[in-house]
C-alpha cells in the first residue's frame, strides 16, 4: 500500500494574507538572525549598538502588533492553514511580551557591563525567546504550541547559564534544562494522546471533535491533564514549581527579570486558549485539577515567601503565588467570561509590576554580584530615594493594595470566582493575599531602616543610569495606569477575550 498515493495533493500554498498575520513574529525572528550576525562584526566596545538594534526590532514588532489589533478585527482569523491565530488575544499578549522584552533590553547593557557579561549573544537569545513567546500566544495547533514552548525554553536555558564562570548560574541552567525537558515530555505525551483520540492537531478541529457527545474517553482526559501539567510547569504553579526559586536566584538577574514575566504571560495566554476554549467541553474533567493547583500554588507560594531572606527567592515564591491567582481566572473562565478577562488583566498587571520590581534589583546590582539578600536593601531609601520609592510601590502592587495594578487584577479574578458560585476559591485567594502583605511590607519597610552609627555598609549600590532609571520609572507609571485607568483596560481585555479561538464556530 502506498502511503504517498493516498494523500491529498498539497496544491494550496500560503499567501500574503498569511504572512501579514505572522508579521510581528517574522520581524523579531529576522531580527534574531540579524543580531546573531551583527555580533560577529560589531567590535566589543560597541556592544550597546546591539542593544539599540534589539530595541528597534522590538519596537517595530510592537507597532505591528498594535496595528494587528485593529486589522484582525473582533473575530480574528487563523493563518497558515489554521496553525497560528491572527486575533486580538495574540495582539494583546504580544504587546505585553514585547514591552517586557523592551524593558529588559533597557536595563541590560548597564547591568551586563557591571557584571562583565556583556556578550553579543545575549540580545540574539533574548529575541529568540521573544519569538517563542509571541508564537506561543498565537499558536492554534499542538505542533506550533510545542515548537514555540521549546524555542522559548531552550533560549532561556542558555540565558540562565549566561554567567559562564559562575557555579550558581550553571547550576540554575542545568536544573532548568533537566526539569524543563522532563515537563515537556509529559506535555508531549498529553499532546500525543489528544491528537490520537481526536485525530487532529489543530485546536479548532480538536474542539469540534471533543464537543461530540459520546462515552467518556479516559485516554483523552489523561491527555488533557498531562498537557496541563506541562503548562503548569511553565507558569511555575505549585506543585510543579521546584525549579523556580533556584533558577530565579541562580540566573543573572536581568535574565530573571525577563523570564519571570514574559514566560508566564505567554504560557498563560496559551493556557487560556487551549483550556478555556478548545477543551471547554471537557470543563467538568479538568476544572477540579486546575482549582486544586491554584489553591496549592497560593498556599505554598505565600507561605514559603514568608521565610525567605533573598529578594530573588522571595520574588520567585511570590511569582508562584501570583500564578495561583491567575489560575483562578482560568479555572472559572469557561463558565464566567469575567474569569478570562480577569486573568488577562492580572497578566498585564503582574507583567508591569513584577518586571518593575526585578528591574530595581537589576539596576541596583553592582560589580561582580547580584543584589540578593534582604540586608543589601537596608537603608536604600536614604541613598537612592526614587528607586526605593518605586520598589515600595511595586511591592504594594504585588500585595494588591488599592490604586495599584495588582488590586484590580486580584479583584477581578476573585469576583469571577464568586460569579461562578465558587466562593471557597475566592476565600482561599483573599486569605492568602492577606498573608502575602506581611512579606511584601517587610521588604518595603527594610528600605527605610537606618543603619546604626559605625555599621559598615555591606554593599555598594551603583549609580542609576538614564536608561535603567527610565525603565523603572516607565514600569512604575504602567503600574499606576493599570491601577487607575481601569475602564479602558477592561474594555481592552474584553475585546481581547472575544475571539480566543478563531476558526471555531
Amino acid at each position: 500500500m502506498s502511503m504517498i498515493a493516498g494523500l491529498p495533493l498539497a496544491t494550496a500554498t500560503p499567501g500574503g494574507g498569511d504572512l501579514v498575520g505572522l508579521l510581528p513574529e517574522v520581524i523579531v525572528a529576522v531580527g534574531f538572525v540579524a543580531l546573531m550576525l551583527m555580533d560577529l562584526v560589531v567590535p566589543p566596545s560597541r556592544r550597546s549598538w546591539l542593544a539599540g538594534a534589539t530595541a528597534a526590532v522590538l519596537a517595530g514588532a510592537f507597532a505591528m502588533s498594535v496595528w494587528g489589533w485593529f486589522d484582525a478585527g473582533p473575530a480574528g482569523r487563523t493563518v497558515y492553514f489554521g496553525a497560528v491565530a491572527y486575533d486580538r488575544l495574540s495582539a494583546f499578549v504580544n504587546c505585553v511580551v514585547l514591552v517586557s522584552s523592551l524593558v529588559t533590553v533597557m536595563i541590560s547593557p548597564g547591568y551586563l557591563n557591571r557584571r562583565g557579561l556583556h556578550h553579543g549573544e545575549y540580545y540574539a537569545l533574548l529575541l529568540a525567546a521573544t519569538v517563542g513567546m509571541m508564537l506561543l500566544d498565537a499558536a492554534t495547533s499542538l505542533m506550533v504550541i510545542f515548537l514555540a514552548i521549546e524555542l522559548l525554553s531552550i533560549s532561556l536555558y542558555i540565558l540562565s547559564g549566561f554567567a559562564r564562570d559562575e557555579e550558581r548560574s550553571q547550576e540554575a541552567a542545568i536544573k532548568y534544562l533537566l526539569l524543563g525537558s522532563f515537563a515537556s515530555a509529559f506535555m508531549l505525551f498529553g499532546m500525543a494522546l489528544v491528537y490520537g483520540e481526536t485525530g487532529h492537531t489543530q485546536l479548532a478541529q480538536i474542539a469540534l471533535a471533543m464537543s461530540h457527545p459520546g462515552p467518556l474517553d479516559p485516554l483523552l482526559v489523561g491527555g488533557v491533564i498531562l498537557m496541563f501539567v506541562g503548562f503548569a510547569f511553565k507558569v511555575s504553579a505549585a506543585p510543579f514549581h521546584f525549579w523556580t526559586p533556584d533558577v530565579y536566584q541562580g540566573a543573572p538577574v536581568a535574565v530573571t527579570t525577563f523570564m519571570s514575566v514574559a514566560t508566564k504571560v505567554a504560557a498563560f495566554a496559551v493556557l487560556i486558549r487551549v483550556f478555556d476554549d478548545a477543551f471547554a467541553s471537557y470543563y467538568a474533567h479538568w476544572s477540579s485539577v486546575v482549582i486544586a493547583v491554584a489553591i496549592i500554588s497560593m498556599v505554598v507560594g505565600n507561605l514559603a515567601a514568608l521565610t525567605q531572606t533573598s529578594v530573588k527567592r522571595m520574588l520567585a515564591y511570590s511569582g508562584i503565588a501570583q500564578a495561583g491567582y491567575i489560575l483562578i481566572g482560568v479555572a472559572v473562565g469557561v463558565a464566567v467570561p469575567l474569569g478570562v478577562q480577569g486573568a488577562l488583566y492580572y497578566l498585564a498587571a503582574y507583567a508591569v509590576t513584577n518586571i518593575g520590581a526585578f528591574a530595581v534589583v537589576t539596576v541596583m546590582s553592582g560589580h561582580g554580584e547580584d543584589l540578593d539578600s534582604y540586608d543589601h536593601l537596608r537603608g536604600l531609601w536614604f541613598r537612592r530615594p526614587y528607586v526605593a520609592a518605586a520598589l515600595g510601590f511595586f511591592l504594594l502592587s504585588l500585595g494588591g493594595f488599592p490604586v495599584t495594578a495588582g488590586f484590580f487584577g486580584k479583584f477581578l479574578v476573585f469576583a469571577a470566582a464568586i460569579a461562578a458560585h465558587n466562593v471557597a476559591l475566592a476565600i482561599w485567594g483573599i486569605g492568602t493575599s492577606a498573608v502575602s502583605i506581611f512579606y511584601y511590607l517587610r521588604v518595603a519597610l527594610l528600605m527605610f531602616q537606618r543603619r546604626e552609627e559605625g555599621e559598615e555598609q555591606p554593599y555598594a549600590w551603583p549609580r542609576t543610569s538614564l536608561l535603567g532609571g527610565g525603565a523603572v520609572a516607565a514600569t512604575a507609571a504602567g503600574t499606576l495606569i493599570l491601577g487607575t485607568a481601569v475602564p479602558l483596560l477592561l474594555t481592552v481585555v474584553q475585546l481581547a477575550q472575544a475571539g480566543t479561538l478563531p476558526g471555531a464556530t
Partner: protein
Amino acid sequence: MLSDYAPILVFLGVCVLFGAGVPLLSSLLGPRRPSAEKDLPYESGIVPVESARRRFSVSFYVTAMLFIVFDVESIFLFPWATIVRQLRVFGVVEMGIFILVLLLGLVYIWAKGALTWE
C-alpha cells in the same frame, strides 16, 4: 494471519544458522597460530598506543554537538522532497529560506571559531 509471519521465522533461522555456522566452520578448517599481536584490539590496522579507556578531549563533544544539530535538521528535507513538485516555486523558495537560516548558523559558529580544533 499467523502464516504471514512465516518468512520472518525462516529468515531468523537462516540468520542464526549462518551466524553460528561460519565461525564454527572457520575454527574447524582454519589453521591456528596464536601470537600476542593477534590479541590486540583491531584499530583498522594501526597498532594501538594506549588504553581505550582514557579521557577524551572536550573538543570531540563540541564537534559532535554541532554535527547533531545540522544533521537532524536535514530530516525536514525528506517530507519536502515527496511533494516538492506539487509545491512548485513556493516549495523551493521555502526550503531555500530554511537552508539559508541553517547556513547563517554555520557561518556564525565558523566565525566564532567553534570549528577550529584547539
